[in-house]
């Protein structure tokens, strides 16, 4: 379970997170939505201590991630998968080597066992025949799939997706979201998905949390969010140019 309590973060004089609180129960898949630049990705980075908060706590299974010693943090991080917006693939390695990297470095598996596991994961994301290609030879959607395979190969218990469909066309974007949905259901993972894809994400998450002006203003089911009378949520969900949110 992930528990975020009164999280604050500022850069210089700009306060980005101003008391964020959110609870994600084990096995739950939650979408984090909000305007561009509202701090969604930054909030996600706090969950794996890529950023430390100015104030507040992030608890993963009751453990305060900001206060963990390095060894404990590494153990916790090995239970968490993080799919970056860019994919964060190693450009000088092939797709196979990218996916095999965590297994080669974190396990004592034989190369045969690693090969079998990597090809299995690549098959599960529909990229069995792309193992010898380099990331530069892949489309945006394929890169996201490889990033997901590299994350899944470590068998994480929690998975964090940072805007995985940004820059993809609607068909590829939807296929990626449905892939996440099937992975979540198959492995019963706890997940947080940062996304702008409304209403596409409504069918795959249990809850939607909206971040606005540095705070979570709503945590509701997709149905409730879709019919919310809250003017901020209404404007965001329906993409209205007029309303309380100014760009």
């Amino acid at each position, binding site marked *: 379970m992930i528990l975020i309590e009164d999280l604050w973060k500022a850069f210089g004089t700009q306060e980005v997170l101003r008391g964020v609180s959110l609870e994600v129960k084990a096995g739950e898949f939650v979408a984090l939505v909000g305007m561009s630049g509202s701090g969604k990705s930054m909030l996600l980075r706090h969950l*794996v201590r*890529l950023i430390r908060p100015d104030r507040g706590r992030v608890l993963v299974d009751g453990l305060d991630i900001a206060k963990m010693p390095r060894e404990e943090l*590494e*153990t916790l*991080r*090995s239970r*968490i998968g*993080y799919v*970056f*917006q*860019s994919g*964060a*693939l*190693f*450009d000088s390695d092939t797709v196979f080597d990218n996916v095999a*990297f*965590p297994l080669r*470095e*974190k396990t004592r598996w034989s190369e045969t066992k690693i090969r079998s596991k990597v090809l299995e994961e690549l098959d599960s994301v529909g990229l069995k025949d792309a193992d010898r290609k380099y990331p530069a030879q892949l489309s945006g959607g394929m890169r996201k799939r490889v990033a997901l395979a590299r994350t899944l190969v*470590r068998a994480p218990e929690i998975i964090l997706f940072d805007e995985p469909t940004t820059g993809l066309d609607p068909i590829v974007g939807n296929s990626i979201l449905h892939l996440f949905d099937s992975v979540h259901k198959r492995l019963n993972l706890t997940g947080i998905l940062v996304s702008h894809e409304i209403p596409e994400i409504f069918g795959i998450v249990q809850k939607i949390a909206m971040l606005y002006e540095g705070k979570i203003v709503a945590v509701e089911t997709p149905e409730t969010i879709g019919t919310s009378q809250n003017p901020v949520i209404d404007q965001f969900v329906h993409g209205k140019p007029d309303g309380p949110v100014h760009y």
Partner: protein
Amino acid sequence: MTDSLTALGVRLIALFMLAGKTTLFLGEAVVCSITRPIKFRRIIEQIWFIGWKSMPVICLTATFTGMVLALQGYPTLRRVGSEALLGPLVSLSLISELGPVLSALMVTGRAGSAITAKIGIMRINDEIDAIELMGLNPLRYLVAPNLIAFLIAMPLLAVVFDVIAIFGAYLVGVRVLGMDGSAYFGEMSNYVVLHDIVIGIYKSMSFGGLIAWVCCYKGFNCRFGAEGVSAATTQAVVASSVLILIGDYLITSLIN
């Protein structure tokens, strides 16, 4: 008055913080270099990249450095009737000074800048964060192999530089200016001692460590965007080059 004191204080604090950060970075890189698991394959790859791929530029620079040393040195020595000492002049200048310094400057421009840019791009593409989130230390994969490779490759490159430059000077001194070939090499063996060669190797290893430290640090801490990578690369090359020259002076003054 108060404002200028405050500004000075802010600058001093920033300087101390930078010194602390860079020292911690080096310390962690050294620890990763001498503790298991050591990434032998990456070390070999980096020796090939830093050492072997720098050979053309090293050979070219060395040839012309040797040639110009002979062209400049021979007439000067002839004026004082010591033209037979061209060999010692060229070899002593190269082995303990010009070889390590010029080869280090060339390698900074060719390999150091490329390493800063590569690590910088990995930083802005989240690749370094991805390694960290796999529960691994990115310094072990990106910095330690470079540090070891620079320490191995730089002395070898400096030796290659010295040998080629000595033959470059031979070409001009003996073949073009008409000096006696046996005197060129004979006098050289009389004057050059093992101590000079050891100093040259020690210097080039120090410069190798310095280039790895500065270039990896700059890449690791680069700001975001193409501009950030560009600035980091420029700063790495300028800082490494200046520190090589300062380091050369300090090592020479300590030894003498």
